[in-house]
């Protein structure tokens, strides 16, 4: 058994809380979507229990095949695929939001669970902290 590295020492772990991030904005017209993603990664780094919900125009954040070459803005959508590597695996999409925009899960860049508005509400009730973007 190897000696623990200095950064793997006995530093006490803080409490793990249930965090939900509610994403309701389209990706490029405002900065909300990108800011949400940054904060999600911070929570993941602190090994919190993270849940993401995409609803309203937020479902467009995870639309496949975004190509931002011509608008001079970084395409940050591949980062959603990296969330799994940070143990952020609870991704939900609200059914009503997806359907009203003519989208299906085939249009999305990451695997998600599709739940209806009542199930979203239940999930919100289970959280300790909800951050809305």
């Amino acid at each position, binding site marked *: 058994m190897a000696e623990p590295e200095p950064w793997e020492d006995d530093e006490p772990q803080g409490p793990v809380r249930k965090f939900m991030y509610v994403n309701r904005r*389209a990706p490029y*017209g405002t900065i909300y979507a990108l800011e949400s993603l940054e904060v999600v990664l911070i929570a993941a780094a602190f090994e919190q229990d993270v849940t993401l919900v995409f609803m309203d125009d937020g479902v467009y954040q995870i639309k496949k*095949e975004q190509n931002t*070459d*011509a*608008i001079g803005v970084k395409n940050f*959508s591949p980062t959603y695929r990296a969330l799994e590597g940070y143990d952020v695996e609870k991704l939900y999409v609200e059914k009503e939001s997806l359907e009203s*925009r*003519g989208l299906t899960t085939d249009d999305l860049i990451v695997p998600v669970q599709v739940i209806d508005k009542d199930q979203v509400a239940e999930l919100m009730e289970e959280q300790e902290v909800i951050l809305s973007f």
Partner: protein
Amino acid sequence: MAMLHTVNKSPFERRALDSALRHAVKGAGILLIEDGVYAAFDGTVVSAKVKAALTDHKIYVLGPDVNARGMTEKNVIDGLEVVDYGGFVDLVTEYDKVQAWL
């Protein structure tokens, strides 16, 4: 000629497109840009309204903003014209005036 109305807000979140359509006279052009391009796609709850507006208006949509949002010309409602940045400039010169609905 007529006025060109630009709309840059999502029709699912804001009323900018509704206001533009309500105030655009027959013959006025509508140009969808930025998050306004979400109004241009078929199969959504707003596509019927956009199709109806084609009776009185030419409707254009900015291609670079369409592609950035994961869509292509195939997703755009038939009858809308996809333009690039050069086309945007041409429209501004072709129409008398431009009104931006923010």
